[in-house]
């Protein structure tokens, strides 16, 4: 088991070396904006009344603001972590 764990740790290190760390480890204003909106009821109310003002407060780029206005989840997901898009397919027939 120790050998297996050792090999797994090498595999993990190599994966990070070649593929990089997941994007979630880096700062991301759009991601923080989405998380805060999901957690903070008052912020949601504020956003409903003044979406542009809230987006400005979070420093979103014009492109990101466009995605939010249009409900473009695909672009948002790509921006906050492209490597996560494949996770929706977790089923396959055997």
């Amino acid at each position, binding site marked *: 088991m120790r050998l297996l764990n050792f090999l797994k740790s090498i595999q993990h290190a190599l994966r990070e070396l070649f593929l990089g760390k997941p994007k979630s480890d880096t700062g991301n204003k759009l991601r923080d904006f*989405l998380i805060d909106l999901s957690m903070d009821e008052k912020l949601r109310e504020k956003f409903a009344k003044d979406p542009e003002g809230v987006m400005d407060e979070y420093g979103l780029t014009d492109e990101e603001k466009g995605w*939010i206005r249009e409900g473009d989840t695909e672009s948002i997901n790509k921006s*906050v972590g492209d490597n996560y898009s*494949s996770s929706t397919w977790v089923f*396959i027939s055997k």
Partner: protein
Amino acid sequence: MKNSPHKGSLTIVGTGIKLSDHLTKESLIAIKNADKVLAVVADSATFHWLKSLNSNVESLQAFYGKEKDRLETYQQMIDTIAESVINGYKTCAIFYGHPGIFVLPSHEVIEKLQNLGYSAKMLPGISADACLFADLGVDPARDGCQSYEATDFLLFNRALDPSVACIMWQVGVIAEFKAKSVASNDKRFGVFVDELLKYYPKDHIVTLYEAAQFGIFDSKIIEVTIEKLRETKVSTISTLYIPPANKKRINHEIAKLLEVDTARFA
């Protein structure tokens, strides 16, 4: 397995579809109390939020690969989760949506660990069809509900009853066993539409549905006739809802045996 002699254990939970909003209270407790959390979620915002609940969260996302067979990916997920439990960790594994719906590794790792004598269980989560029933205002008890994974429907001669509602899952990834999407003008999607036309009239109106992933958005609901499906954009998370095309018919012989007055259904 309530009295397992082993220290390690597994609880599998689902985040639901919508970031932070769909997590049940019992799932939240399981995440917070775990020694180790292994997550397969839909986006990095959800992953980051999970880290705020338990700092020992690791993503299993790196096991996916665009040219990699998903069965290999799932086996790696199973092995990683099982290894954590066998190494003595109180482990919580997290999947997107309901952890037991369209998630192969969750069921298999529970079976594997239970066979080895470990405590392993699953908690329910909110799935895409749960969102669909709410958003479309349909009740699966009213006319019944058939539910097929689109590729499974095509490959295994599944028959449809047009008097029963139908949910077709994963219509955007038909016959795709790696990590690519299939466009609606792809010939595989065309095969799917042709098959539907054997059961339904071409002008039957169906709904392409995507549950809202973030609270600030509405779910995507696109109504279209079956013949126009080919011209409509489908995504990797599209689900197709087909309402009944025919009225249900009473079985009068059974009704008589059950002493049911059929006039109430008139």
